[in-house]
């Protein structure tokens, strides 16, 4: 008589895949690899600059490339928690800080490009732009909101603030990403498709958070209500 082999069930395949992914994600080397991967956009930009292949308007190309990667890293960082829960991969959380810091890194490069190559480090002119041009104002807001998060990204700061307060502070990243999307929407001449696309991804990620938050609230209420029924 044939015994049923559990190894052929879908559940088994899922379990093994999850386990395998978990192992890969726990590896130190995966993190090193991810770190290097995050540097590729910068490397490519540098290489193209060196090769003089940045096109007719190198300054614009650098501003746009760094701006694009800032918004991408913000969105990738915001996907970590949903993906962690959906894929049941707690180890994904190990990458969140690094990704967030890369968003800040590319954002700083983006800002520096503007300050240096557009404004020539003229702080007065810079300030005039920040107060006068709304797309610069919200861009600046997006970057400034990231500063406290970058500073308090270390384990030491989580301890000092206490996890609850730390988590509350780090919700600022939602507003930073939103400001980043608005910044892009306001700066394009007429073609709003890409800013809307980024806005759509952000909306999806926020909807997920809202959904899980409401779910957990209602389960908590049930949990509280349950004993009284006894």
């Amino acid at each position: 008589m044939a015994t049923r082999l559990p190894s052929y069930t879908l559940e088994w395949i899922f379990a093994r895949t999850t386990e395998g992914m978990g192992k890969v994600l726990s590896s130190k080397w995966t993190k090193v690899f991810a770190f290097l991967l995050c540097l590729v956009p910068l490397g490519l930009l540098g290489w193209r600059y060196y090769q003089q292949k940045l096109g007719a308007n190198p300054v614009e190309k650098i501003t746009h490339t760094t701006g694009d990667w800032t918004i991408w890293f913000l969105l990738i960082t915001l996907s970590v928690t949903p993906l962690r829960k959906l894929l049941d991969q707690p180890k994904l959380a190990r990458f969140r800080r690094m990704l967030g810091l890369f968003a800040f890194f590319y954002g700083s490069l983006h800002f520096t490009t503007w300050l240096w190559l557009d404004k020539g480090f003229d702080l007065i002119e810079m300030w005039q732009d920040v107060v006068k041009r709304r797309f610069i104002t919200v861009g600046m807001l997006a970057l400034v909101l990231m500063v406290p998060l970058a500073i308090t990204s270390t384990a030491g700061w989580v301890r000092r603030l206490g996890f609850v307060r730390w988590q509350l502070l780090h919700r600022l990243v939602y507003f930073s990403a939103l400001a980043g999307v608005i910044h892009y929407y306001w700066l394009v001449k007429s073609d709003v498709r890409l800013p809307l696309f980024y806005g759509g991804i952000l909306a999806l990620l926020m909807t997920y958070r809202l959904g899980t938050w409401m779910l957990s609230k209602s389960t908590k209420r049930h949990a509280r209500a349950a004993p009284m029924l006894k």
Partner: protein
Amino acid sequence: MLIRKAPEFRYSQITPRDVYFNRRTFLAAGTAAIGALATSNSLFAGEKLSGVSKSPLSTDEKPTPFDLITHYNNFYEFGSDKEDPAANSGNFRTSPWTMKVEGEVGKPKVFDLDALFKIAPLEERIYRHRCVERWSMVIPWVGFPLNALLKQVEPTSKAKYVAFESYYDKKQMPKARGTGIEFPYVEGLRLDEAMHPLTLLVVGLYGEKLPNQDGAPIRLVVPWKYGFKSIKSLVRIRLVEKQPPTAWNLSAPNEYGFYSNVNPEVDHPRWSQAKERRLPELSSRNTVKFNGYGDQVAKLYTGMDLRKNY
């Protein structure tokens, strides 16, 4: 010094001239007709223009390399990225072509492709080109004054403005949709602006027929106005009594006015126009009022508030 990189070869050099000029018979007879059609415009662009005289109205500034003039374009019919027009206009059919001139004129006319090149003697005019996006180039155009054409059609006393219209075909220009402006692209000038000797109809660049991405086969160039006034791939010119609508003004009236003269004193709502980047330079230089053509054109606007009439 021109640091233009010569293309490796020109189809005109490897195709016998008579075959080259009778492209339609050649294509009909040709075996790979479809393939040839697909490249018909690479056959066409790059053809050397003959009998071009130098103009005293040229600037002696160093022209921007050919590669940059042809790979950094705003031509939304082919997409909104600067690299899009070069990438997407290769198959754009500019032959056969007709351009109508009509409206308040004594002698309306329709020009076919051949006729467009014979309206007036061709001149090379090296002009500064200032985009509203704060970049600039120096471009050796080949063309003739628009006034030569306008005189031929004899504007009536009712003609106060000139309205221009670009070619538009959804099938050939699928990337136009979603770019946020309306097509066909339209532009306009006051009649005295249109009659000004600096205002050109352009059929060539760097001594050759105009590449598709730069507005083949015929476009307008108004060097003292922001680049978007210099409408590309013209199919219709109408002389009219009232100020005609213009594409960017329809899209964002508070940002792009009818006049759109280069003016460092009047900001775009979202950026300052005080400076510009002469591509491919990294640093900026000061923008000059009327793009440096003030001596010739400032008198067109005496008594006008250019802040209001931006």
